[in-house]
Every structure is written in structure tokens, then in C-alpha cells.
């Protein structure tokens, strides 16, 4: 159930609509300091349902919306869509018939949020249920943030236990 594509619009430094297409295997993302690579990782965490702005390096969730640069004004909303492959048929009903699933999250500066599965409006809990059922929701060890790897082995015993429980 790999990631086929990520679409970003107005999310952090991705002001213009950007479509990133991935393959299976190893995909290396490269570029100079500050160009937006970790912002891509933040986008995946965000569309997977991240609720804490601090986990996305912000103080408020509003800070994920493009706030202007180089003559471009700030935007009013941020949107990220994640397209997941269902070639192995592991996605549970009612989506098991699709060959791919698109999950979209949108946040307006007003604070309003919208959620979509395959471009059909849904509630946040429908998305979190979908991810829980496919095992993605549980695997916090699947995304390792920049600068955080050395801390993994210095975690408290209860946190290391939590990693084992996620794999159980």
C-alpha cells in the first residue's frame, strides 16, 4: 500500500500546486538547505491526521498555510492530497474495490477544516479509521523526523516498549 503521489497546494513553501510522484523501492529526495524537503514529510504527517502543530515545527496549525514570499502574497488555505496504491487489495470496505485511494485535508485561515476521501467530503474520523484499518495509523516508527534518530535509543523504557507494542 505504498504512496503513489502527494499533491500539495499552499502547504508551507509549496505555494503553487505541486505533484510529487513516487515509485516502490527507495525514493531519495534531494535539494539544498531550506528548499522544502522536510516540508514534504510534514505534509504526509499532516494529511495522515497530525493534530499537534509542534510536531510540524509550528506554534499554531495555521502556520502550515503558505504565508508569502518573494512578492507572492500569503494564501487563505492549505491542501494536501495523498494517493495510496491499493494494488495488494489490503484496503478494507467500502474502498476495497478501488485500485488507489486519495485522502485530502484542507485547512482555511479561518480555522475551518475539510476532509475528503476520493474527492468525496467525509469527516476527520473517517480518515483516521481508514488509516487505522490499514495499519498506517499505528506505525509511528514509520516516519523519522530530521535530527530525531539519535534520540530513539536514548528514549525511556516506556517509549521503547511503545514501539514494540506498535509492531505487535
Amino acid at each position, binding site marked *: 500500500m505504498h504512496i503513489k503521489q502527494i499533491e500539495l497546494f499552499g502547504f508551507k513553501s509549496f505555494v503553487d500546486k505541486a505533484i510529487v510522484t513516487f515509485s516502490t523501492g527507495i525514493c531519495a529526495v534531494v535539494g539544498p538547505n*531550506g528548499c522544502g524537503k522536510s516540508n514534504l514529510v510534514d505534509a504526509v504527517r499532516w494529511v495522515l491526521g497530525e493534530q499537534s502543530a509542534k510536531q510540524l515545527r509550528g506554534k499554531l496549525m495555521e502556520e502550515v498555510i503558505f504565508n508569502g514570499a518573494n512578492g507572492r502574497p500569503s494564501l487563505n488555505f492549505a491542501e494536501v492530497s495523498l494517493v495510496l496504491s491499493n494494488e495488494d487489495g489490503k484496503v478494507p470496505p467500502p474502498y476495497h474495490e478501488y485500485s488507489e485511494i486519495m485522502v485530502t485535508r484542507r485547512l482555511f485561515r479561518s480555522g475551518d477544516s475539510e476532509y475528503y476521501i476520493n474527492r468525496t467530503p467525509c469527516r476527520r474520523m473517517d480518515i483516521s479509521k481508514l488509516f487505522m484499518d490499514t495499519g498506517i495509523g499505528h506505525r509511528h516508527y514509520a516516519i523519522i523526523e530530521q535530527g530525531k534518530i539519535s534520540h530513539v535509543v536514548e528514549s525511556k523504557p516506556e517509549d521503547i516498549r511503545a514501539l514494540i507494542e506498535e509492531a505487535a
Partner: protein
Amino acid sequence: TRKRFLQTLEAVNRKLEEVFPLLFNGGSGHLQLLTDRDPLEAGVEILVQPPGKRLTSMTLLSGGEKALAAAALLFSLYMIRPSPFCILDEVDAPLDDANIDRFIKVLKRISLDSQVILITHNKRTMETSDLLLGVTMEEPGISKIISVNFQGLSDTHEQMV
């Protein structure tokens, strides 16, 4: 359930005992359940010994050793219970060249069962990827995705930075 947790702990532990020496070119690593509480609540400790060195507390390890030990634990989790995809942001930054080579070798194995998305500044790591994606900021403050192919790797990378 207690049984399921203990089975998983044992499986991850056995995998760690196999993976650790592959990354460290020797040495040993394992997980230990603390005995101060019921197995349903007790914490888990990770104990590692780089080749030829004596077992010391994790905090005394070097920056590179901590990152590599963490990779050993994470790779063991990935092998026991693969995630559909995993995303690693600059985890190779503290590693020297020899450790990066061993790291990539085990990562290749993981990538047969999971999609691996890797953010890196390291040329060796880039060379082993199946797909290379470039992010640029030609217009300051505005990110753009470009696809990069392997022939163009070294000069594109030069151009991008």
C-alpha cells in the same frame, strides 16, 4: 494481550540480534524487558555493544553509534511488521562512509517489502536509490519539484546547490 506482546518482543529481539552486527560490522544488540513490573506494563531496555567495546550506557555512545543503533532497532521493527511505507529524514547525516554503506545494504533489503522515502544530502545514498526526486527553490521561498535522472546526478546536484 500479554502473550502477543511477549511474542513480538521476542521476534524483534531476535531480528535485532541479526541486524545489529550487519550494521556495526560486529558487536551485539538486544532488547530486555525490565522486571520491576508486570510484563503488561514493564518498560523495554535496549543494550548495545559496538564490536570490541564493552557494554556502557547508551548516552556514552557517539553520535554516529546512536544513529546506527537506532537504525538497527527500527529496521528490526520494519522486518517483523513491515509498514506500507517509511519516511526517513536525513538519518544518514551523522554516519561516516563505511557505516553508510552497511546502512544502505540493509535498507535495500527493507525496500523489497516497504516503500522507502529517504531525504538525504549524501551522494552514496542517492546513488543507491531507485528514484531520485529533486526539490528546488529557484524563486526564493517557493518550492518546486523536479525529477532528476542518474546520469545528471552529479551535475544536477551541483546545479541545485
